[in-house]
């Protein structure tokens, strides 16, 4: 039951001993302040890391080719490995379910123009799955589809900044853009969180590019995403198998690091996760250490308070105060001081982070905020901490004998 009189008693006692309550709360305020700021910074760093990878799907695997550095199977070193459509189909068929999305890429630098505006851009010729791999967000129209590929259509999906550069204030959708002298119809406009460079890309069907830029079936790069149900270790195993099979297919020495390069985003994600986790642990340890110091401080001062109030407690007992009522007064006072002090620290910490956000962004710390979950967590922690801090003093208080307390000095 909510006992208004008990609270009145406690507030009166805190109010009576303002300096002392303030002092005992200070360590906790400081602990939580420190914790909030450190936590915010760690959070910010984590956000920065995450953003570095948000551009691409986190389960992506990029496959590139180069020249061999070692002789193998009677073939000389320095041989150029070239992916073709058949390799793309091979990967698709060989790994089946393990592959979620797959696309090839052909890169081409082009001079694009519309009316009087022109500029240099990169064309990325790709398959329809590409938009999932790159997290491309279509704002108008559509992405490249299978029909475009089948009919080798001269269609283009352009980045937001390409539209801005060339089409000025007008919509590019349905208009024709000139890429190295060939007219492409703009069928879609996209944006991408990966930054300005990504938004200066132009996507065309991979088949169209093969026909126009060399009339061959060459591919520059094959990207895929693995089935997200796979864990880190499974995913790494998958990319290892994939590497081995491709090396065999192209008769590349198993130890050749250059000829076929497979980059698995899972590795990066794992490293980032581990770093964030490690950082979180360090901060937790520091935060808890400081909090423990704060708890010890409060406990110490509460013991002193109990000593100071020995006589008062004796009087209360002589008037009929039960041991329980004495314990609850001390305990609740302790919890209350801890909580008020803790929240003060938390809000100061949040304020500091809020103010420092623009500065921190220069140091790769993005959006270093503390959310509701943390506040709930902090509240529980503080209640527990206050109870621990108040336990010993309260026990001491309940053991005070009125006869000793009331003895005239």
């Amino acid at each position, binding site marked *: 039951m909510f006992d208004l*009189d008990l609270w009145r008693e406690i507030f009166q006692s805190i109010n009576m001993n303002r300096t002392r309550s303030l002092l005992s709360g200070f360590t906790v305020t400081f602990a939580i302040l420190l914790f909030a700021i450190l936590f915010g910074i760690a959070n910010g760093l984590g956000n920065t890391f995450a953003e570095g990878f948000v551009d691409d799907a986190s389960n992506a695997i990029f496959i590139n080719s180069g020249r061999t550095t070692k002789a193998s199977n009677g073939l000389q070193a320095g041989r150029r490995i070239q992916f073709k459509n058949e390799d793309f189909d091979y990967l698709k068929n060989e790994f089946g379910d393990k592959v979620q999305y797959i696309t090839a890429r052909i890169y081409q630098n082009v001079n694009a123009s519309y009316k009087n505006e022109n500029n240099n851009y990169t064309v990325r010729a790709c398959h329809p799955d590409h938009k999932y791999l790159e997290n491309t967000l279509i704002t108008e129209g559509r992405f490249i589809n299978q029909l475009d590929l089948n009919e080798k259509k001269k269609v283009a999906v352009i980045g937001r900044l390409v539209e801005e550069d060339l089409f000025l204030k007008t919509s590019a959708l349905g208009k024709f853009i000139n890429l190295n002298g060939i007219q492409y119809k703009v069928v879609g406009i996209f944006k991408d969180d990966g930054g300005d460079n990504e938004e200066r890309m132009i996507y065309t069907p991979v088949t169209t590019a093969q026909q126009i830029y060399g009339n061959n079936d060459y591919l520059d790069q094959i990207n895929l995403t693995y089935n997200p149900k796979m864990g880190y270790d499974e995913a790494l195993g998958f990319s290892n198998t994939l590497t081995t099979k491709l090396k065999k297919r192209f008769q590349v020495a198993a130890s050749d690091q250059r000829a076929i390069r497979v980059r698995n985003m899972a590795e990066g994600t794992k490293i980032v996760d581990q770093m964030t986790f490690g950082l979180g642990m360090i901060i937790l340890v520091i935060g808890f250490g400081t909090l423990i110091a704060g708890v010890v401080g409060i406990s110490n001062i509460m013991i002193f308070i109990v000593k100071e109030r020995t006589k008062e407690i004796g009087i*209360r007992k*002589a*008037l*009929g105060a*039960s041991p329980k*009522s004495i314990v609850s007064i001390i305990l609740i006072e302790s919890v209350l001081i801890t909580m008020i002090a803790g929240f003060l620290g938390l809000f100061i910490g949040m304020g500091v982070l809020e103010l420092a956000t623009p500065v921190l962004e220069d140091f790769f710390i993005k959006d270093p905020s503390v959310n509701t979950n943390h506040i709930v967590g902090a509240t529980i922690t503080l209640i527990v901490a206050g109870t621990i801090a108040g336990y010993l003093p309260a026990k001491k208080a309940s053991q005070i004998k009125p*006869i000793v307390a*009331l003895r005239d000095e």
Partner: protein
Amino acid sequence: MQSNWYQSHKIDSEKPPIMLKISKLHKSYPIGDSSLHVLKGIDLSVEEGEMVAIMGSSGSGKSTLLNIIGMLDELDEGEYVLDNVPIVNLTEKKAAIYRNKFLGFIFQSFNLISYKNALENVGLPLYYQGLKRSERVEKALFHLEKVGLKAWAKHLPNELSGGQKQRVAIARALAANPKLLLADEPTGALDTKTSHEIMDFIQSLNDEGKTILMVTHEEDIANMCKRIVRLKDGVIMEDVKIEQVRASQYV
């Protein structure tokens, strides 16, 4: 007149009930390796409506006796029955309930809580009885009025004179309507005139039928009671009923 008639009439018709009965009470305190035997077999019986002074030089054990009666201290040996309730196996919790229900304390140094005003101090035993705030305020005000300090209800103890503080303390002792009032040198910290005023008030409480036990070493204060129990070295030397000296003649 009427109260005198009532008392004499009562004594004639039936013996007043026993308020407290102590037999073969022993108490010693450990001092280093040895122990100090403070009370050596006390037998004492107090009837309802009595006003008893416990006298003795310092070290005679008079305060220890009062503390045991007040359940602030525990006895080593012997029996103690208060209002037909045997006081044995006293846990902290039980002692708290008994103290609250049966006893009112008046101390030499008043023992008011410094940061609570007169009204709150008087209301404290009622708070521990679990009374609602409104009832507490009403009862506390009633008792403050009785000691003539209703106008001072909102004053803190350090804004009151010694006599006023003791009167607040008496109001606090009365608030829970205890069966027995225990006073430990109630006038020890007061000047003669104020002492007489306080004694006058305590006598009027006794006139209303309250049983009062007080420890004092002042002969004239003891003479204002109805019975004097003299302690020496832990035993009762003398236990006499006396003709009460009214304090009102000095006020």
